[in-house]
């Protein structure tokens, strides 16, 4: 009798989850916040060093704030910029979790965008309820297939995905240039490489045109939210996600547990590519409405930062993507209002990543924000 009740108490105790520790809070919240602050300060020093006067620096940071969250228009711009970053970032995060360092989001965005734009202009007259999902799906499938090439190379031959995805990026640039010159792809009456426009039934509808017709926020935000939920579910609730994470953390133990490494690699790459492809589709169907040379605009590389900043966690990626979207939208405002180059935003983004990657440095700069190392060992 007492034995069973004893056992029950023990079971209950074992099932208790320790409250998230102070150390986790410091890692996930305090370090990123301080990293942003330090990056802004160093950014100001960079501006000083390039002979920008203090007043202009003040104005530019004010513009950064206004341009990112200061008005409905800024919020709309922030979200619009964040959508592809979050989508591609989710894909990269998923790859990182599975131990794959995928540098190829840029190429997967391009290939996904091409596929989406082709579907987008090819079926005029199709009802939007079929056409739009079809175009998005085309982007995801194309991105997924493109990324699987690198996955398959890794699984079958051991070719490292860092190298193969970089090569696939280069191929995708030329593929885009080539396709934009094809007669069935190029817009009629244009000599420069621009694709035909996506017909309205395949466009991601703008959401806030009732308030102001210039607001660009589009339905891609729902795709983004759906993707965050989907990736969270996949990684943490499913067998496949368990396999991804196990192979990422300890490939040897995963193999010993009977998981099939090659299958997992191809599957993880394909899923990552599909998400990047969706980001590409989102750009051509929601923002640009066509494909142009270089429409990927480095989103695939910024997404690497987003995934790292978000600690490869879907919720983290969401916040990191929003931050980077805000920096981008604010940066444009900064350029207009204060005449400071938008490249400064690139510098600030890079600095944030540097400081996130060096938590010890942040701890050293802000010792009062953290408990002493000795107290942390619990």
């Amino acid at each position, binding site marked *: 009798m007492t034995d069973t009740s004893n056992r029950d108490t023990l079971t209950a105790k074992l099932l208790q989850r320790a409250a998230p520790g102070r150390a986790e809070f410091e890692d996930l919240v305090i370090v990123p916040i301080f990293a942003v602050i330090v990056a802004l300060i160093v950014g100001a020093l960079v501006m000083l060093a390039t002979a920008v006067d203090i007043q202009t620096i003040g104005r530019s940071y004010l513009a950064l704030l206004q341009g990112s969250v200061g008005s409905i228009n800024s919020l709309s711009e922030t979200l619009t910029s964040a959508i592809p970053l979050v989508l591609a970032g989710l894909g990269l995060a998923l790859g990182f979790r599975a131990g794959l360092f995928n540098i190829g989001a840029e190429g997967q965005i391009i290939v996904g965008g091409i596929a989406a734009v082709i579907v987008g202009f090819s079926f005029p007259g199709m009802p939007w309820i079929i056409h739009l999902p079809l175009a998005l799906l085309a982007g995801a499938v194309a991105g997924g297939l493109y990324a699987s090439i690198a996955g398959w190379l890794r699984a079958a031959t051991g070719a490292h995905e860092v190298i193969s995805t970089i090569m696939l990026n280069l191929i995708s640039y030329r593929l885009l240039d080539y396709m934009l010159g094809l007669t069935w792809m190029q817009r009629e009456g244009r000599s420069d490489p621009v694709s035909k426009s996506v017909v309205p039934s395949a466009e991601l509808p703008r959401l806030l045109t009732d308030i102001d017709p210039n607001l660009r926020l589009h339905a891609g935000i729902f795709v983004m939210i759906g993707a965050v939920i989907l990736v969270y579910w996949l990684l943490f609730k499913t067998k496949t996600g368990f396999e991804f994470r196990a192979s990422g*953390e300890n490939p040897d133990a995963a193999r010993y547990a009977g998981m099939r490494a090659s299958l997992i690699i191809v599957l993880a790459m394909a899923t990552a590519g599909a998400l990047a492809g969706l980001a590409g589709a989102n750009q051509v169907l929601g923002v640009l409405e066509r494909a142009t040379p270089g429409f990927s605009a480095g989103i695939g590389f910024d997404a690497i930062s987003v995934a790292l900043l978000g600690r490869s966690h879907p919720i983290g990626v969401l916040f990191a993507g929003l931050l980077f979207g805000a920096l981008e939208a604010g940066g444009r405002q900064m350029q207009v209002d204060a005449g400071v180059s938008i490249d400064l935003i690139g510098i600030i983004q890079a600095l944030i990543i540097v400081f996130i990657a060096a938590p010890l440095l942040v701890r050293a700069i802000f010792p009062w924000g953290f408990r002493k190392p000795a107290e942390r060992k619990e």
Partner: protein
Amino acid sequence: MDVELRGITKRFGPVTANDDVNLTIRAGEVLGLLGENGAGKSTMMNILSGLYSPDEGQILIDGKPVDFEGPGDGIAAGIGMVHQHFMLVPVFTVAENVILGVEPTGRFDYLDLATARKQVRDINEKYGLQVDPDALIEDLPVGIQQRVEILKVLFRSAEVLILDEPTAVLTPQEVEEFFGIVKSLRDAGKAIVFITHKLHEIIEIADRINVLRGGRITGEGDPKTLTENQLAEMMVGRPVSFDVKKGPFDPKETLLEVKNLVVLRENDEIAVNHASFHVRSGEVVGIAGVQGNGQSALIEAVTGLHHVTAGSISFLGKDITNASARERHRMGMAHIPEDRHKSGMISNFTIYENMVLNTYYDDRFSNGPNIKWPEVLKTAAQYAIDFDVRTPSVYLKAGNLSGGNQQKMVVARELERETKLVIAAQPTRGLDVGSIEYIHSRLMDARDEGDGVIIVSSELDEIMSLSDRILVMFEGRIVAEFDATAGPVDKNAVGLAMAGAHE
């Protein structure tokens, strides 16, 4: 040179690793230091070698207090440590390794190898180490590599030698030779600290024994009068049984049949050379051998983790030579991997995730694509209770558990299901006496319930005490078989077979 530790206390946050430890090390004496993992042996030795500084207490050398500020200070004061894991450059010669960091140099930084070799040879002769200064490390057996480590500290004029678990990698014959060297060092006036958890060794070699438990010295004594049971009780804090309880030997049908198995390593060297054996229900087959003689490859081939080049494996009457690891696992093959950190568990995963690392796909734990986490959690808590995994919560990362508890977690995962054949590779390596006792008894329970059990271990004592039948592997072949049910097996004969004398 005599060294005294006086009232040494060392804390790491709330954990007190050493609590008011007093220890005397005398010249011309072997001090045996006995303790479980986590008892504070390593902390104490790291304080002695200058790596840590104590929070309280003093180190006195020949009566004079010293203050070590860095890892170099210990060796400068004449205290040398021989680590369990060798720190040698494989492509360098013995002499080059010995002088590494303290090279005798001439003008313009000219490396004076001739002098070095002579010095190495002198030390060699003085203590009877018998190591060729010009041999490449990678060509030497482990036993000799260990002597090179000893040469290294002697070359740095160490008067106190700390030997950390020195016999873990040696064959019984090598252990005998090694003890000879330890004795000659002692007779030459060196002070030796011999750290181990093997009771019979400490009784054989030590002149004086100190037992450490929970950071404190819990026992001190004369090896001539102490028994293994007394020492074990001091070490664990409760009586420990060394007799593994097992039921009468009653083997039934053959479960596993391996015929003419050939397994190649990545570099096409032969790892397993035409090995044939069988395992019956209700019997324990021990596979003895010095590490690196093909045992690992044999186990990997049997469990489906390594490609079989020739020969066949059948399990429960079915040919499984080409079956996947998961298929074999589902048929009832349990595998406790030899290196739990590398392949048995995922340190960064929680305990409950590790508990289902190879059963998550089972209908019990999954529903379509989803894993039933509530079910997993409940089961993991039950496993933890059943197998005495001591943890505050199953949400804890497995990496935060002690080695013994990690291994119990792995054993729980493998045994808590319908098993037919249990393959345990080095099941108790690096564990404390309490955990060893527990894991042994669970393995014997599996045998008594009718499972076949294969135990691979480099600890001959473990093989001897558990096995009904002992196979010895040497250079990929099974060179000898001993029946342990008829009467006690001659340990010496097994040891000789391990060293290849059966040819």
